[in-house]
């Protein structure tokens, strides 16, 4: 599904160079649910952004669903984001002036679906997250957890192969966080690959595979480690 090899990302400003990722290699198979953990500033978001084609990497190779992504045009990358990827953000990133229906509609319009198909997909995905009855509501009229569910519905409506989530529960209390996590698990159970960055060890422990990022490099922790060990690795780093 996703294959990064010897990838590096360097941020250059006129003063400093930040090596956000170096010699970063990882393979994620179809159907996996990967939790990415690591200290602040270690490069988790950078990894997710590159995986999600929001940023370009500096060196190395990256293949997504069999497509080599180095040197693609912006238009092509936009189309891939639209068709193959779904995003869930910490801050939900709903458009405040559009109701739920129109929010979920945003990526579908870029896809060029017919009005009929869009309507059907919007209704199905809002149903899936349990908010079909509030289609005409605006984001400000929902709780945080509900807003994140709408964002998930928006990510799902295009039937992506890979769902990318950067701290999807970071702004939610533990109750709502659990609800969102359960939703993600059911999505994964339906076959969608998920990569989720999280600071919450409890959530990370629920996934089958944990990836630990330290100082721009990846330490893959398959399920051999239990929760405590993950914590320890992070501390010793």
């Amino acid at each position, binding site marked *: 599904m996703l294959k990064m090899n010897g990838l590096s990302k360097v941020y250059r400003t006129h003063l400093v160079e930040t090596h956000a990722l170096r010699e970063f290699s990882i393979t994620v198979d179809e159907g996996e649910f990967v939790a990415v953990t690591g200290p602040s500033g270690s490069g988790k978001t950078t990894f*997710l*952004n590159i995986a999600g084609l*929001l940023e370009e990497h500096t060196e190395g190779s990256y293949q997504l669903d069999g497509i080599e992504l180095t040197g693609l045009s912006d238009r092509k990358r*936009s189309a891939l984001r639209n068709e193959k990827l779904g995003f869930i953000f910490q801050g939900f*990133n709903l458009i405040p*002036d*559009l109701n739920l229906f*129109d929010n979920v*509609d945003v990526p579908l319009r*870029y896809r060029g679906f017919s009005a009929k198909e869009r309507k059907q997909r919007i209704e199905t995905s809002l149903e899936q997250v349990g908010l079909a009855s509030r289609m005409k509501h605006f984001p400000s009229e929902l709780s945080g957890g509900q807003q994140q569910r709408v964002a998930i519905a928006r990510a799902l409506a295009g039937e992506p192969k890979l769902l990318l989530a950067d701290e999807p529960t970071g702004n939610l209390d533990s109750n709502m966080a659990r609800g969102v996590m359960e939703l993600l698990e059911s999505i994964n159970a339906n076959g969608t690959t998920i990569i989720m960055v999280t600071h919450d060890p409890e959530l990370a422990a629920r996934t089958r595979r944990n990836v630990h990022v330290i100082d721009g490099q990846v330490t893959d922790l398959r399920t051999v480690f239990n929760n405590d060990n993950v914590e320890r690795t992070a501390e010793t780093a």
Partner: protein
Amino acid sequence: MDIKPIFKTLIRNPVGLVLIATQVALTLAIIVNSLFIINQRLDNISVKSGIDEDNTLMISFSSLSDSYNMENAIANDLAFLKSLPGVNSAMATNSLPLSNSGWSSGVSSQSDYKGVEIGSAFYFADETLVDTLGVDLIAGRSFRSEEISYYYLSDELEPPVCIVSADLALTLFPDLNNPEEVVGKKIWYGGVENPKFAEVIGVINDIKAPWRGWSEPIFNRVIYVPHKPIFGKFSRYVVRAENGQLDNLVKNIQTELSNFDDQRVIRPPRPFSDIREVFVRNDKGMATTLTIVIVLLLLINALGIIGLVSFWVTQRTKQIGTRRALGATKFDILTYFLTENLIITCIGVIIGSILAMALNNWLVTAFSLSKLPMSYLLGSALLLILMGMIAVCAPAMRAMNVQPAVATRSV
């Protein structure tokens, strides 16, 4: 393009929409009417006097003593002027087209003034009329030298013959369609108590009166009478120069005439360009002022759009990043802002068109301006829409270049 969601967003945040649409509407209303007025003024400015403007000058003199023989002086001066190198022709007259001063009187096609009395300008001319002014005689003939007499201010004006402008001819004799047929007709003047007539011997095309006339359209109605005027100790000549000789003549003619006869005061000559300049001064001023107003309004309008859209782009940076993350291309973002701006400008243009017509209606009744042609409205609307599109380009391109990573990076 996806107009519906953009429109919904605008409706939910109507402040910017109302602000810019109002600005566009007011700008349009003012610009349309200003353009219309400018165009009328430009028409005024480019008016043709009907004489050979490029080669014509006017010069006046006053004698110093009461015993001075004006008739001799005029006869000698004209002979002298015609003998000067660079002079094509010269005659004595009272006034020229566009000069803002002259004579006018009511005339009629009937002795009892039944029918209509038409206001007309009166000019004095001699047998050199066609040569001296370069007017376009389209029917009949010019004056003969034996028809010319001196005219003193104390005299009754009693010309036996006259030459009229085609416009006056056809106004007096609306049944005739050919100026040729007016030749030989009688024109009555002098009022009901003391009616006198002059026989029309010629018709001139497109000659203008000294002034435009407010209540009645005197501007195209002109009568030439066969006299050399003597206004007390004062008279004036119109001189037509050979092609290219006018500047020279303007420089020397005052000295030449003074040297020829030093018993009078010769005034500085006025080339016709001076006369025209004074005549169109107000129109020019108005056209210039309104042009500046239009340019300023368009600029303010553009700045308003740039300001608001720039603010929106900054405010929506995260939203733009999110849209990019969800699959929007740069082009999608660009068209979003162009479309949004187009919607706002179009709403403004529609309201503005209604305002413009209302404003024009008021101007029509209050200042008797003419009705606004639709083409002005369409032209101004297009101009505003175009300006809006140009103005929105800079902020829209900034929006287009917002990085998709903003979706995850900004708070």
